[in-house]
């Protein structure tokens, strides 16, 4: 019965057979008889007073069931969507699911039409007349903090939601005062749109008989949605709302947050006693899914003459959009400023952040969330410092790396790194990339008018979001543990209920690998259930690369409880002392008497027959564990990018991309490689193409796949990925988290490569995205 060791095996995914045959169940695939369909009326203006809404014509259309405005919802008891992370002094203007008297970004919902078909709902939405009175607009964060800028909210006339800082300012000032070299640069980390290919969707079905409501929802964290929607927005009893997130088509952060649409749909289903469904059109996704990034930063790095980093000073303006999205306040703060030490021994760091309202879509976590912004800034600064000191960028990195014997390592920006070997990852990357040969090739190529460049990103990131106590002290209004329930059935088959959520990560495979190993049962006997508050007791969901380091650790702990109880039952049946029973190869046997044994099935059956149980032991074989780790985990690595920039057109061609990541121990290398590939694609694409752009009137001018540059297959190179393995001491499986490293590391590697390529023209820095027109403009006349 014993399974082979599955941890570390690239077994094929168990979820794939349904997904490759069209038998997946995504939210929009769920069908309930009698369903009505919602279509939202959205503000075409970035900022406008809503003087009047006239739904007379819409209501007359055949098939229309109801039209609701913001006022109707307020009258119906619907409260604003809360913010789940608080910073001292923060201003949190009310965000009603439907705007009540003012719309503050293009696309903000002001009314909803519910009809018997989606086509009719859309027809009727067009008939809703809204009398908008346009107001002055500010879309750019740097402009929003200028005196006299239009105020997005009356309660924040200066458009500042909060100010935040980290690090020792006096020590940093002192480091700069004594420095031989100070390197300065301003950076724009531009706005991105997540664009999971499955648009957000919600189907709420109220049961008027029981008062229960079931909500099928595209969410990365169904329990978080249930808690916030029931307790804060809709005033429903938490236990009467069930949130199911079946197959979810990508998230990248954008499906963490509670959005207006699911609140409206759920409320309307209750009000109408009918199922109500809404699936976003892509244009709505562009306008309403939480965006990512959008920083302006001024950075200064102090160095000794021989290249030792002495201090780093960063001032950042972060664009929060028109309202604070659920976890937005922690992104440009605790997931950004704390990462500015990177892989280096920089002794003094100070970071100052101003979070600003603008008339744009709210900004929140997008893959990496704060960490890509920090890594980009730091790794660009390291390259600029090397350039200014006339040092090799690798030599400067090596000189400043935290040595592997210094872990756990306390940085000057609050974090304590768990484990690391930064030189090891760099060395491994350089085994596959002949740096000296490249520099020679580069020199030769330049003579022929061909401009090659190499960029490095020797990043560190913090993920596996936890521990709860620390998060709470820093402002989180939630715990950051994870739960797993392990249910062993009488026949020995196993169902695991995890609070982690898979929206592409392959939990049905990786979690089953861990469970099968720990319980020593065939993987075919293990079922993984996630994404249903009706089945899973509780969970915080998946984001911040936490399923591996937190979610599977909870499962591991639960499995130990199962084994402990099973051993007690086996010991009783074998008439042996508990301590003398060993469980190996799917058999319980007595130490020293290998002939005396009971199988897994003998014991699981007895747990439910309960005919012959140890005295005082309850029947059944089920355990729940909540794992709350003592720290984040800290993946790291070296990414290398080689590009060619066309002198005459500014076109960038990525010739090679190599990543060596250290993600601790890896459950399924094939799945982890896949996540790294996808992450690199997103980060690379930020460096070169993707850009969410607003005009001065707050109109999103990149509002569809026609003008927002998503990477296609023919835009990208083949990515070469490798690993080193430094286990994390933070969780029992030694896992570091793998979901975001690609995105966090790659943007800087690509940007550094492009800048290296055009360095001969005396160009120091060009802000991303490094599109042909920007590079052509920079190269023109040089």
């Amino acid at each position, binding site marked *: 019965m014993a399974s082979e060791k599955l941890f570390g095996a690239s077994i094929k995914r168990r*979820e*794939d057979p349904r997904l*490759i045959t*069209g038998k997946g169940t995504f939210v929009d695939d769920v069908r309930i008889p009698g369903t009505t369909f919602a279509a939202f009326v959205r503000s075409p203006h970035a900022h406008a007073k809503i003087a009047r809404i006239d739904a007379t014509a819409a209501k007359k259309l055949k098939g229309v069931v109801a039209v609701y405005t913001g006022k109707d919802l307020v009258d119906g008891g619907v409260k604003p969507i809360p913010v789940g992370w608080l910073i001292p002094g923060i201003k949190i203007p009310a965000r009603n699911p439907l705007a009540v008297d003012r719309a503050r970004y293009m696309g903000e919902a002001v009314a909803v039409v519910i009809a018997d078909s989606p086509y009719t709902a859309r027809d009727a939405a067009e008939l809703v007349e809204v009398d908008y009175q346009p107001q002055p607009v500010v879309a750019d964060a740097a402009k929003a903090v200028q005196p006299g800028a239009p105020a997005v909210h009356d309660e924040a006339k200066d458009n500042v939601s909060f100010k935040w800082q980290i690090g020792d300012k006096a020590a940093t000032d002192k480091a700069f005062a004594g420095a031989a070299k100070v390197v300065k640069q301003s950076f724009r980390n531009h706005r991105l749109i997540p664009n999971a*290919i*499955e648009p957000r969707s919600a189907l709420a079905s109220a049961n008027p008989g029981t008062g229960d409501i079931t909500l099928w929802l595209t969410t990365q964290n169904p329990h978080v949605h249930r808690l916030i929607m029931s307790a804060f927005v809709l005033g429903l009893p938490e236990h009467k709302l069930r949130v199911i997130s079946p197959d979810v088509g990508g998230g*990248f952060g954008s499906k963490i947050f509670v959005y207006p649409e699911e609140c409206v749909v759920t409320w309307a289903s209750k009000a109408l006693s009918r199922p109500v469904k809404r699936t976003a059109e892509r*244009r709505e996704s562009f306008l309403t899914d939480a965006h990512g990034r959008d920083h302006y930063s001024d950075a200064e790095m102090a160095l000794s003459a021989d290249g030792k980093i002495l201090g780093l000073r960063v001032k950042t303006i972060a664009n929060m959009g028109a309202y604070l999205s659920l976890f937005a306040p922690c992104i440009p703060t605790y997931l950004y400023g704390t990462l500015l030490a990177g892989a280096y021994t920089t002794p003094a760091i100070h970071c100052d952040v101003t979070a600003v309202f603008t008339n744009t879509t709210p900004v929140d976590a997008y893959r990496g969330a704060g960490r890509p912004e920090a890594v980009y800034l730091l790794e660009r600064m390291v390259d600029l410092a090397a350039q200014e000191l006339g040092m090799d960028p690798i030599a400067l990195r090596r000189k400043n790396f935290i040595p592997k014997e210094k872990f756990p390592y306390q940085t000057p920006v609050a974090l304590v790194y768990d484990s690391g070997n930064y030189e090891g990852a760099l060395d491994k990357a350089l085994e596959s990339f002949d740096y000296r040969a490249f520099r020679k090739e580069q020199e030769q190529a330049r003579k022929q008018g061909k401009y090659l460049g190499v960029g490095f990103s020797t990043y560190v990131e913090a993920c596996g979001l936890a521990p709860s106590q620390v998060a709470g002290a820093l402002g989180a209004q939630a715990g950051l543990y994870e739960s797993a329930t392990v249910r062993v059935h009488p026949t020995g088959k196993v169902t695991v209920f995890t609070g982690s959520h898979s929206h592409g990560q392959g939990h049905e495979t990786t979690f089953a690998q861990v469970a099968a190993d720990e319980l020593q049962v065939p993987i075919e006997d293990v079922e993984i259930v996630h994404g249903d508050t009706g089945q899973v007791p509780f969970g915080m969901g998946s984001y911040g690369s936490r399923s591996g380091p937190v979610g599977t650790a909870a499962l591991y702990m639960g499995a130990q409880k199962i084994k402990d109880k099973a051993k007690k039952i086996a010991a009783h049946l074998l008439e042996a002392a508990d301590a003398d029973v060993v469980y190996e190869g799917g058999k319980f046997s007595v130490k020293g008497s290998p002939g005396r044994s009971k199988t897994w099935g003998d014991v699981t059956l007895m747990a439910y027959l309960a005919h012959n149980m140890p005295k005082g032991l309850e029947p059944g074989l089920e355990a729940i564990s909540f794992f709350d780790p003592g720290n984040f985990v800290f993946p790291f690595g070296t990414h290398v990018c080689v590009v060619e920039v066309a002198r005459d057109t500014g076109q960038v061609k990525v010739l090679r991309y190599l990543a060596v990541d250290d993600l601790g121990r890896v459950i399924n290398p094939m799945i982890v490689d*896949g996540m790294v590939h996808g992450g690199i694609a997103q980060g690379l694409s930020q460096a070169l193409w993707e850009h969410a752009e607003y005009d001065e009137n707050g109109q999103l001018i990149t509002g569809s796949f026609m003008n927002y540059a998503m*990477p296609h297959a023919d835009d990208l190179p083949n990515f070469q990925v490798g690993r080193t393995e430094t286990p994390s001491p933070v969780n029992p499986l030694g896992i570091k988290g793998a979901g975001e490293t690609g995105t966090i590391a790659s943007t800087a590697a690509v940007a550094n490569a492009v800048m290296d390529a055009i360095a001969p023209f005396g160009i120091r820095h060009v802000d991303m995205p490094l599109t042909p027109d920007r590079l052509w403009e920079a190269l023109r006349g040089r």
Partner: protein
Amino acid sequence: MSSITINVNGVAETREVEPRVLLVHFLRDVLSLTGTHVGCDTSQCGACTVLLDGAAVKSCSLFAVQVEGRSVTTIEGLASNGKLHPVQQAFWDQHGLQCGFCTPGMILSACELLARNPSPNETQIRAGLEGNLCRCTGYNNIVKAVQQAAKAR
């Protein structure tokens, strides 16, 4: 309303539809073939790709009435007698999918690509799939899957 007959996965389906109903909605909402997905509204993402008389088309940019009398293959019709199509098998073997939402369209585009060019090189595979967006995989393993499927044919 118009009466139309479309052969879908080998079965003649006759239905009354509004002339404005898109083929993808006909498949999903009228025939309950929900394997064909909708990922955009500008015919860029390719999630809704189906085969129309063997050619890959975006079913969001055709009206159902336009394909009257023709044959449509959706992802549900690709496997035969319980055996996966070589392209499906290759996507599974090579980990060519993560969330799986773009996958049906991607697989059908790959089928058409291989029908046109049975042994494409990597550049041709990438060019052949440029009408389908995937946000999860970075396309690395999708390319590998198409290479495997090409060898299997």
